[in-house]
């Protein structure tokens, strides 16, 4: 036992490798603790005793029992010794347990070669050859190794009796006989299956962790209060151009990264966090190696040590440059639109979608309407004039289509300060204004355009009246004739001194009165037709202008033997238009129909009656008016051109070619649609449709 104590107090050459093994893996510490003590003992004994004992084995039988006890106590370590020829002479309990052979099976019968893979021995042999130039094989490899690489650890596989394999870490030493002869091999091996397994698990977990670190966009760091900082992967290099080694070596610190202008703000955030919950998120710029600016969002936690001092700071950086650039771009575009808004040549209002009140008004809006910005903001725009149903029209868009919605309303009368009216077109589009759903109302002053249109229309009407004058004269002559004759009759009777029967006097007076009314009505109609209409829209029963026109033209067309048939549907829904304009439209269409019939007559065609038919009805939620004639008809070629200005099929001097152009303009202005059906030689039908106005 004295020998054992000695061996514990000093390191033997056999012990060092074990220490290394043990140090390498904490996990195995406990398992190994027992084994280590045993191994310490064993190693010592093995070395000392074998050198001694082998020499006097046969002389000291007692020592054998003691040795066995020692060897067996190293239960988890395989200790195998051989004689000079390599034949196994010691096979301890640990070896029996690991290799599943019994000592009796092997001692004196086998060599340790049976525990090794041939391939591993071959590899070891090659290694030894390349290192020392000696070529050995089989069992000799183990001898050679023991001689050349004494005390070197080797990792290899052991083969159990059942053929299964397991990894071991082993030391192969030579047993020395007196006079330095090699007395045999000593192979001490430890099962490292568990260790391998835990090593593998550790490697796997580390691999996963590194993978995670590499794949998340965040750059995880651990920093110190002095600004030194450690990064765990290379992402920092991608972003800043500085490698993680630059930081590990303390050549670069956090302060070196931060863009100078942002440093104070970033520090302030840190100080605030110190006062509160020690966590903070800050956004600041970093300047990369190449001078480029990188926007960083940093979320960090300050960690305190046991002594109450800041131990370290840990957290992650996120590159938010793209987001910041997008924000900046949106800000710039906002600036751009702001300048458009401010310098826009037309009035623009921003209206709150919910309250319908003015949120903002550009300088032109202030100038046009004559109110200051303070006067305008907070008021509903309807104080300035109606916007018709732009809001309800906008609301008909689905919520997903809302951003693309756009509504235009025209011919609306607005009022400037001082109640001065003017005509506008309102264009309404949705917009997000200061994160509120809002509506942009762009106003265009169309008074001048409308006035020009009106002038053109008026000129065209006057032309029409001129064309009509002969017919009107004829028509006015009729009542005048009756009045004149009645008057001449009475005068004649008085001159003759004859008695006028009361019955006849009554007849004359009632006729005269009737005819004066008739003349007055003709004059009224003409005056209405020639009147320059108000520009505003009104609700029109389309039958009214049809009646008015037919009463003007009926008589004259009858004299030309052209029949006018009027079929009107009762109780038509109103359309939003202007009565006078619609009269003009219908008149132009009837005049055109008449001309088409004239042209047919001029070509000497006598076939059938000459008829102009005017119908009104409703169809597909629209009010329809058709004007058909039995005239000359049109080719498709002409049909394509008839709405062009100055296009005419009439003789020079008979028409300017503006009638249908103007008609088309009016119809379009009231959201009307035009449709033409025509057949050469058979006649044409002009069909107009207008949307209902049901409000």
């Amino acid at each position, binding site marked *: 036992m004295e020998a054992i104590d000695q061996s514990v107090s000093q390191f033997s050459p056999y012990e060092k490798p074990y220490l290394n093994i043990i140090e390498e893996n904490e996990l195995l510490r406990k398992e190994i603790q027992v084994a280590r003590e045993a191994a310490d003992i064993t190693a010592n004994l093995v070395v000392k005793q074998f050198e001694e004992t082998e020499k006097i084995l046969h002389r000291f039988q007692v020592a054998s029992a003691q040795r066995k006890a020692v060897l067996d106590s190293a239960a988890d370590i395989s200790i195998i010794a051989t004689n000079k020829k390599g034949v196994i002479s010691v096979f301890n309990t640990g070896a029996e347990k690991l290799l599943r052979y019994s000592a009796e099976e092997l001692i004196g019968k086998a060599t340790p070669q049976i525990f090794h893979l041939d391939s591993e021995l071959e590899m070891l042999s090659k290694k030894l050859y390349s290192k020392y130039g000696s070529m050995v094989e089989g069992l000799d490899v183990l001898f050679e190794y023991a001689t050349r690489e004494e005390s070197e650890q080797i990792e290899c596989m052991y083969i159990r009796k059942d053929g299964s394999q397991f990894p071991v870490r082993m030391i192969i030493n030579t047993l020395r006989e007196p006079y330095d002869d090699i007395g045999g091999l000593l192979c001490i091996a430890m099962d490292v299956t568990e260790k391998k397994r835990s090593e593998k698990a550790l490697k796997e977990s580390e691999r996963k962790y590194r993978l995670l670190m590499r794949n998340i966009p965040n750059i995880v760091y651990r920093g110190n209060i002095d600004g030194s900082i450690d990064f765990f992967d290379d992402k920092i290099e991608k972003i800043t151009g500085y490698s993680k080694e630059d930081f590990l070596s303390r050549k670069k610190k956090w302060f070196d990264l931060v863009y100078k202008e942002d440093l104070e703000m970033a520090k302030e955030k840190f100080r605030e966090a110190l006062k509160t919950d020690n966590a903070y998120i800050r956004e600041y710029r970093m300047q990369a190696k190449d001078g480029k600016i990188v926007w960083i969002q940093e979320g960090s936690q300050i960690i305190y040590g046991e002594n109450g001092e800041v131990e370290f700071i840990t957290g992650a950086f996120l590159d938010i440059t793209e987001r910041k650039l997008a924000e900046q771009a949106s800000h710039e575009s906002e600036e751009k639109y702001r300048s458009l808004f401010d310098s826009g040549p037309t009035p623009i209002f921003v209206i709150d979608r919910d309250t319908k009140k003015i949120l903002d008004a550009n300088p032109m809006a202030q100038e046009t309407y004559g109110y200051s910005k303070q006067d305008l903001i907070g008021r509903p725009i309807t104080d300035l004039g109606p916007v018709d149903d732009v809001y309800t029209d906008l609301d008909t868009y689905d919520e997903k289509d809302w951003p693309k919605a756009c509504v235009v309303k025209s011919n609306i009368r607005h009022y400037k300060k001082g109640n001065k009216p003017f005509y506008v077109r309102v264009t309404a589009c949705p917009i997000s204004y200061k994160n509120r759903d809002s509506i942009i109302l762009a106003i265009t002053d169309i008074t001048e355009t409308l006035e020009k249109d009106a002038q053109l229309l008026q000129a065209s009407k006057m032309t029409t009246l001129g064309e009509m004058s*002969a017919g009107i*004269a*004829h028509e006015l*002559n*009729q*009542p*005048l*004739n*009756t*009045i*004149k*004759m*009645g008057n*001449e*009759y009475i*005068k*004649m*009777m008085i001159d003759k001194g*004859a008695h006028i029967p009361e019955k*006849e006097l009554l*007849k*004359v007076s009632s*006729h005269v009165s*009737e*005819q004066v009314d008739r003349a007055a009505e003709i004059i009224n109609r003409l005056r209405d037709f020639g009147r320059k209409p108000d520009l505003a829209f009104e609700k029109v029963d389309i039958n009214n202008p049809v009646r008015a026109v037919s009463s003007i033209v009926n008589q004259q067309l*009858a*004299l030309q*033997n052209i029949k006018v048939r009027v079929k009107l549907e009762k109780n038509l829904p109103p359309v939003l238009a202007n009565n006078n304009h619609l009269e003009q439209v219908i008149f132009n269409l009837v005049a055109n129909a008449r001309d088409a019939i004239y042209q047919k007559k001029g070509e000497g065609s006598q076939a059938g009656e000459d008829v102009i038919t005017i119908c009104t009805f409703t169809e597909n939620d629209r009010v329809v008016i058709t004007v058909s004639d039995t005239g000359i008809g049109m080719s498709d070629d002409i049909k394509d051109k008839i709405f062009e200005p100055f296009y005419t099929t009439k003789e020079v001097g008979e028409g300017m070619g503006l009638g249908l152009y103007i008609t088309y303009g009016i119809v379009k202005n009231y959201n009307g649609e035009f449709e033409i059906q025509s057949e050469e030689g058979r006649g044409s039908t002009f069909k107009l449709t207008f949307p209902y106005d049901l409000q």
Partner: protein
Amino acid sequence: MEKILVIDDEKPTLSMFGLFLGAYGYEVFTAENGLEGIELFKKERPPIVLTDIKMPGMDGLTVLKEIKKIDPKTEVIVITGHGDMELAKQALDSDAIGFINKPIKKEALDEALNKAWERLNLQKTNSEA
């Protein structure tokens, strides 16, 4: 009592002619359009016919020609409006005795009627002689 036929599409005009010519002592026949007028003419054979020149359907010129075809001795006075001088000329070429403009003046009507009677009387004398 002499017969006289007036053709005009204007009812009040016909009515006034009725009064006027009645006061002159004529038996007055009236028609509202050309075709009706011709039929009435065939039935009553008045020596004098007054017809409006502008009428829907058969116009005054056609009426004039038809009557002259039936009886060339009948005197036809056409009634014209303002600016119908071209039509008036055509009527004279078709042997109308004269034309009167609307609104009709008593003097013009008297003159036309006198002229008609002059010619009627001359024809009568010639045929008797």
